[in-house]
């Protein structure tokens, strides 16, 4: 029972982190209709900058620089790819694949075979609550993600930035005619997404994961199924999808000894199996808008 509880809590916490990443992904898609395949490498960039600087600037200082770096990189990508390209949006998505190839090659080269610590203050300490043992990093992840997601959703709903973002997602041409600056909206979306990914990098690499290494971007990729199974154009979907993926990974990973007939390392692939299962039933994801077209 305690084992199940531990796995559930870990799963929710992991899911919250995936939700952070998926949220950025969805925000970019809503604002610009581009699927950003370079998202995992943005996360890697934020994590790498934090890892390199935390000795000199302290954890929070380094994280601030890391977040800024990822946000700037996002803005730069928006500027280069979307301001110039007249190509179809799904072709621009392929251009982000090119960006991803370059960024990942450079960052994995710099990281090499080492494992970098991001210098988070929680290390490997744990808390005991009534027989249940939870790593402090997991609690911190859950709280941070909850605060950030809450702040984001509030901003999305109540600020004029949020309103313009939603207006653009609804109908970008009309929004532009109403005086909304499309360029600003789309650039801010890419900034926010980069920043969220950089924060998520801290918790993806924190205990019990050993640290930032060249496989971190593969772990971050699991935010893709999270975003897709929730529905690519739904912020609620990103949250639910993130949680679903986190819980699946944690539970399947925790009980994989009982599932050994399915092979080793099942926890890492189970999220993808869940995504396929959901897409079979609902091709547009759980909360995504179905493609309805009137002729």
């Amino acid at each position: 029972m305690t084992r199940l509880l531990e796995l559930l809590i870990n799963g929710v916490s992991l899911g919250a982190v995936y939700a952070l990443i998926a949220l950025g992904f969805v925000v970019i898609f809503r604002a610009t209709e581009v699927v950003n395949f370079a998202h995992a490498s943005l996360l890697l960039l934020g994590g790498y900058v934090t890892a390199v600087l935390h000795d000199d600037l302290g954890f929070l200082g380094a994280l601030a620089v890391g977040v800024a770096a990822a946000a700037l990189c996002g803005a730069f990508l928006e500027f280069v790819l979307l301001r110039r390209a007249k190509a179809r949006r799904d072709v621009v998505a392929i251009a982000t694949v090119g960006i991803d190839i370059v960024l990942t090659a450079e960052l994995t080269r710099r990281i090499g075979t080492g494992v970098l610590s991001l210098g988070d203050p929680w290390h490997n300490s744990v808390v005991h609550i009534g027989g249940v043992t939870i790593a402090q990093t997991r609690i911190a992840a859950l709280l941070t993600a909850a605060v950030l997601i809450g702040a984001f959703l509030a901003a999305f709903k109540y600020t004029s930035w949020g309103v313009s973002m939603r207006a653009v997602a609804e109908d970008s041409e009309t929004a532009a005619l109403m005086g909304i600056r499309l360029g600003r909206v789309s650039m801010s979306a890419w900034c926010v997404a980069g920043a969220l990914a950089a924060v998520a990098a801290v918790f993806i690499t924190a205990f019990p994961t050993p640290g930032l290494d060249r496989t971190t971007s593969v772990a971050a990729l699991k935010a893709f199924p999270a975003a897709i199974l929730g529905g690519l154009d739904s912020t609620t979907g990103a949250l639910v999808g993130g949680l679903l993926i986190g819980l699946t990974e944690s539970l399947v990973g925790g009980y994989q000894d009982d599932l050994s007939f399915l092979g080793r390392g099942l926890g890492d692939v189970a999220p993808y199996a869940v995504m396929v299962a959901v897409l079979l039933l609902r091709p547009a994801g759980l909360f995504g808008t179905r493609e309805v077209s009137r002729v």
Partner: protein
Amino acid sequence: MSRPPLTALLWLPLLILPFYVDMFWLQAGLFVMAAAIGAIGLNLLTGSTGQLSMGHAFFLAVGAYGYVYFAGETSGHVTGLGLPAPVAAVLAVALSGLAGWAFSPIAGRVSGVYLAIASLALIFLGQHVLFNLESVTGGYNGRAVPPMKLFGFAFDDSSELIVAGVPFGGLERLWYLGIALLLAAMLFARGVLGARPGRAMNLVRDQRIAAAALGVPVGKVRAKAFTLSSMYAGLAGVLLALTFQRAVPDYFGMLLALDYLAMIVIGGLGSVGGAVAGAAFVTLLPQLLARYSGDLPLVAAPGADGISPAVAARYLYGAAVVAVVLFLPTGLSGLLSGRLPGLRRSATPMKEESPQ
């Protein structure tokens, strides 16, 4: 197609190449041919039907391991059926097609970029299966690939054969098999694209609703394009395995899938010749950089400190993908045929295609 004599002239030097160049170039060329077959297939799906797939490394693996399993013998910890090699190759391609068809409930219903992410699942599930199915794949270290044998003629170094004073080993013999397969793959793809299926595929890409209104079964066309392109990938996998002579699961990962996407974008979406050009670019680049790393500035020798040839190649073709999307939407094929980027219909943004 429109200029048959010129096209034929381009193939002639390829036929006499094994008499003049060394092993390195032959092997590099065979990798290009295998990659080109896979890229043509992916281009049928992505370029012509507008369905993005990041999962084609999986079908390459199905082809490669299908061949190894059907043709290989049971020995040690690996099993095999020991079928004749050509039968095994055909079965391997069929198996890839079957795997692609099995994915059609998703490939037919999920459009464009959604499919790209959904097909990521194939990579990760595929890697999981490859590493765990040790009796078929040989596990982490992979297993040896049995040579191709056609009517008693083996495509390997076992028997001695000298043609015009040049010793013909496995690579020289495979070279001609590769050319034949590539030629067949190109002609078949052109045939598909030039006839009714190709028109249906293009219409599904450009105007999904119009396609449906004209009686084109959108889901079926998408699923069939996916199946066909997975068979191409399977054939590429077979040729790749024959060239490598060893199949290792780790090879068929995410990076390989991205390589194939890079090939078709650089070559030009929707163009058969473009896919071949893109495949040559992406496949040859790391090998050329590795071979000439001593003479190039900035690139270090393999294993030494600094930017390795493999990484340098990734910078270059990653940048090439971005540059092509931004400045040359028709890719290398557009550059070669002199078409201006702005003239193509698909170069205009189309809102209708993206899911709302």
